[in-house]
């Protein structure tokens, strides 16, 4: 029987380009998350972060960020070189043991220091695919083409997602030229800089830390094969499975925060989760409005929790993705106390 764990607070800073280095930007955001949860650093039993060296172009980026945490006296701390959503998963697992009640999760990444779409090509099979130099936008375009050909969406549907997330008129968006057919500029999330921090609290203590805790009722993640040719790019078995395991369909979903940096991916994930027409998707703008890689998934989790914290939702779903064309996915279902 899993232990009840809630997201008690969420703080973030998302900007087209930070003024300041990671530590300068991250320390206040972590402080804000702790204060919002009515906690101090010493209340934290476990700290986990997510980050990626390739964004900044130097190794051990998570080590440099540790200065923002004040790890003294020594702390119980870990790190995944993955989106902060997976750091949150690790923290959730740690809280299941029962020896600690509070975990701090954070992610940081400056996607604007390099060319994000190009840098992501380093994720590809180094022997047979990476040397072709395929950037992330081109990879996504392959998937969009697969979706169009399978009649799972139209370019108009994609433009409608963009208009909702980033503003603009659908007809005007459709008149814009392709940047990587069938993707237009508005179909592609722009690289951003971001830091985000989430405080997880287990059991009754969560009620002391938050007026409306966002209780995690289900959380699961799954990965698919790496080679694009072995996958049906118009579907996402990993989202379907993770969504099922997380219990998405058990009840109506008020808000869904979907980590879809390309417009067609929102349509794909929405369908794979089985979300109904009344679910509000990405009221935050999602990863299409701003795409701070390695933080975007944690931001979706935080924004979904925020919808519950502010009373805008009773039941919310958050999704995070990693890898080319939605190769790996995490789904989390959250509810308000009486949701």
């Amino acid at each position, binding site marked *: 029987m899993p232990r009840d764990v809630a997201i008690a607070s969420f703080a973030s800073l998302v900007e087209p380009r930070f003024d300041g280095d990671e530590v300068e930007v991250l320390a206040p955001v972590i402080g804000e998350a702790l204060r919002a949860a009515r906690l101090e650093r010493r209340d934290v039993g476990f700290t986990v972060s997510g980050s*990626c060296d390739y964004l900044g172009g130097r190794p051990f980026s998570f080590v440099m960020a540790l200065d923002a945490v004040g790890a003294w006296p020594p702390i119980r701390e870990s790190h995944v070189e993955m989106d902060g959503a997976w750091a949150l998963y690790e923290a959730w697992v740690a809280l299941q043991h029962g020896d600690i009640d509070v975990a701090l999760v954070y992610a940081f990444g400056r996607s604007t220091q390099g060319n994000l779409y190009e840098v992501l090509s380093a994720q590809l099979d180094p022997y047979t695919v990476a040397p072709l130099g395929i950037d992330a936008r081109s990879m996504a375009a392959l998937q969009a083409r697969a979706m169009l050909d399978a009649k799972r969406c139209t370019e108009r549907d994609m433009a409608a997602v963009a208009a909702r997330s980033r503003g603009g008129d659908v007809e005007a968006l459709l008149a814009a030229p392709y940047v990587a057919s069938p993707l237009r500029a508005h179909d592609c999330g722009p690289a951003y800089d971001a830091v985000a921090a989430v405080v997880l609290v287990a059991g009754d203590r969560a009620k002391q830390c938050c007026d409306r805790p966002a209780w995690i009722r289900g959380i699961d993640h799954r*990965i698919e094969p790496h080679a694009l040719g072995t996958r049906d790019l118009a579907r996402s078995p990993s989202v379907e499975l993770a969504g099922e395991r997380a219990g998405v369909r058990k009840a109506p979903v008020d808000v869904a925060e979907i980590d879809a940096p390309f417009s067609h991916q929102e349509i794909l994930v929405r369908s794979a989760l089985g979300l109904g027409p009344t679910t509000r998707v990405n009221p935050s703008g999602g990863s299409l409005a701003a795409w701070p890689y390695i933080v975007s998934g944690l931001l979706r989790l935080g924004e979904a929790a925020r919808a519950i914290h502010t009373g805008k939702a009773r039941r919310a779903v958050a999704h995070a993705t990693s890898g080319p064309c939605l190769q790996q996915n995490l789904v989390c279902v959250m509810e308000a106390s009486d949701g």
Partner: protein
Amino acid sequence: MAERCAVIGIGQTKHTAKRDDVSIPGLVREAAMRALDDAELTWRDIDAVVIGKAPDMFEGVMMPELLLADALGAVGKPMMRVHTAGSVGGSTAIVAAHLVQAGIHQRVLTVAFEKQSESDAMWALSPKYPFQPPLVAGAGGFFAPLIRAYIRRSGAPDDVGMRVAVKDRLNALKNPYAHLHMADISMDSVRASPMLWDPVRYLETCPSSDGACALVLASDEAAKRSPRAPAWVRGTAVRSEPTHFAGRNQVDPRAGRECAADVYKQAGITDPRKQLDAAEIYVPFSWFEPMWLENLGFAADGEGWKMTVEGATALDGDMPVNPSGGVLSTNPIGASGMIRFAEAALQVRGMAGEHQVPGAKLAMGHAYGGASQFFAMWVVGSERP
């Protein structure tokens, strides 16, 4: 509370300078299959996969779990990749253990690796940010000043490091998986080797290896069906402290001491030297053995070197340290922490072959990383808790 967790399968590749007969997926799969075979399981029996390795920039593959999902039978399963600098092999095993201890999965495969022959570690460790010029190459350059500080503070004789270098390489001769098999290692050959970063000589330094290590971690229920003796996880702990702060003791870091105290408490250890039968600790430069012996509470402050000199840490000593040959004999960076954890498990399972410490029942695995700031440790035992 935490569920029981046991190691029921262990696999390693034969660590070597260059494995050009396998790709990165091939390397990790080899270790994983050996672990599965040891546990007499198939890929289908595994519920989740956790991998760990050092910075992506070594091999130039960003977030390699994406590449390796297929090779490690992870398709359709949860998969994670841990990265905690040099301690990663250890912390990866701990994350995997937590999945079992939390009751989430029954059997978890965990793999740590490094394919250094496909990487340029020296380059990856010296990034050229325009405002921070590289002053020194290699981890040895960073640690040598700390070693000098230890020698000064403890008053240890000059040859302690060399004794460790000889002992570990002699142990490695009894470990078929170890990288270095130096039959003619001796105090003379170590002393004669070039001084790299004074006071650290070439033969007091770890090699650069290609290698992978894998473990199958199982729940109580799954361990009952294990064909061979399980190694029960008796305690796990991680601690971190900042890289560099005013008054920091980098020679005897508090994070190391507190990590050890935590894991000892979980395992019911009050006197590690007496109660542990073997310790696999992360010694990449010879002098770290006496330094860690103190940090881990095996010896009083300033006295760690005496244990080395007395022969206490030899395979036939009263506190064998690195019976496998340690990091000094084998160092695929991302894997080294997990190799320590695996070797500790081999000891208490009675499966360490020629480098077995007779009758070992309780053993410790230790890993550290960064500027001696990240620590991961576990204690495993032959008795089910």
